[in-house]
């Protein structure tokens, strides 16, 4: 996945932009995310239903993937079945 690629959840409203990519499969709500949403189908897996938050960055433990949530939804993100977590960034004073 190239940085800048937009991915959509197949089972909820979530959309993310890839900041750092990986060859692994990114899922949302338990289902693989897609570039083009074709059919409505499936539902959010209860194990991946804590939701996504607008503007948050999500990473895996190894730091191989980083996704920016550009549209929130009910599903939560995972990579190969392992949940992604919100990247806690050090808050900086505004310098502009």
């Amino acid at each position: 996945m190239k940085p800048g690629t937009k991915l959509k959840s197949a089972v909820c409203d979530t959309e993310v932009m890839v900041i750092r990519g990986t060859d692994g499969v990114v899922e949302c709500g338990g289902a693989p995310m897609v570039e083009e949403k074709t059919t409505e189908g499936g539902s959010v897996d209860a194990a991946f239903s804590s939701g996504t938050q607008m503007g948050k960055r999500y990473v895996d433990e190894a730091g191989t993937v980083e996704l920016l949530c550009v549209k929130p939804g009910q599903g939560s993100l995972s990579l190969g079945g392992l949940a992604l977590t919100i990247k806690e960034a050090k808050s900086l004073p505004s310098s502009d």
Partner: protein
Amino acid sequence: MNISLILQMAADTGPERTGLVCDGRRWTYGDLMHAARGAAAHMADNGCSYVALLDESSEAAPIALFGAALAGIPYVPLNYRLANEDLAGLLARIAPACIIGDTERAARLAPEGGHVYLTREGFVAAAEAAASDASDEESEGEGIAAQIFTSGTTAAPKAALLRHSNLLGYILGTVEFCSAGEEDAQLVCVPPYHIAGISALMSSIYAMRRIVMLPAFDPDDWLRLATEEKVTNAFLVPTMLSRIVDRLDSGARADLSALKAIAYGGGRMPLELIQRALELFPDTNFTNAYGLTETSSTIALLGPDDHRMAQTSDDPAVRARLASVGRPLPTVELEIRDEEGRSLPAGERGEIYVRGEQVSGEYRERSALDPDGWFPTRDAGWLDDEGYLFLAGRADDVIVRGGENISPGEIEDVLMSHPAIADAAAVGIPSEEWGEAVGIAVVIKPDEATPDEEELRALIRERLRSSRVPEQIRLLPELPYNEMGKLLRREIRAAFQG
């Protein structure tokens, strides 16, 4: 990647929230996104290769910036203060462009090249008219979001390229989305052709902090607008802060009780000025930002706690930090290197190198990055033991006398210690014997007697050494600075010729 994402996310999250206040008109994030989409459609239709802004700050700046991004065309804000001849040169380098703003001047200076000219009002109206039929798609083009001509304090302007990935890397790495409250407002008064003018728009919109735009800086207008709009954040260059402090010290009335934070940068901040400002605004957070056009704005900052600690500390090393530009951003790598490119330890002066996603280092003509992606800034500086960065002028300003490198700053600091001298600059002047020798230009304080040349030479010989003693001395009524407070050394060098 496309920087239009910044505005799109704000518009999705708060379509009805006010994003911009300019000349009495209020624009919601939804209005701005709508207009940017229309601008993109309009630009795509007229077949231009660049979108140029030749105007003071207004709503046209963000609409053109994000409209150009959506259309995949580089945005080129131009310095309207340039002399006709210089501006004509730049217009020729961006043909054919859609030129927004001073159409009369642009058409006169660049009648050829296939440019399309639009006034500010004409552009905004065309964007709004084209919006309803505009596409939702965005175009990447060649991936360049902005092309900014550097101010050229040492040489002719270079066309610095900032890619979408550089600018987004900077914003995503430094700003938390929607982190501002509904009451937060940022007073933007830097000119739109400066990198700080572009980063101010992007940072404020991504934080969803309302932009209060001041089209052209004036200290009384600034105080009035800050009061009326209950401004919470502002960015100033040192000369602007100095003029605001002067107005307040001479009794100007303003209610700045909402002002939580002032960031400053763009030129050297005099120590007395920042100390006075810290006294005058005891509850305001001050941040010093250091960055370059080629690095998408800030790469190092001295934060509010550092300022207050330096202000009150008894430790000379901590107090000295008020003159530093702070520590590098966590998302940026920074090194000081010698002329052979070797990394230098703390305390040693060399050239500042940076690397990171936000660092472009790319010009239209060539990339300045080394094979490992490091950008040589041509700024000289050093780090202290705690990693605080101190600037020591431009590497290009170093005077090379008979193989010895002389920093203008050390001579200038000594000259400024003379009670009669208001301002001073040291530059390299051609010398048959040494290749280059020291020339100094000094400005004498109004009510002081002019010291004789021998006195100044003796002062430098005593405090520094004989190689620093100026061969030539010029008295000037004032030193040439650009509007961002940068000393124009090439003009001073020119004063020694002929």
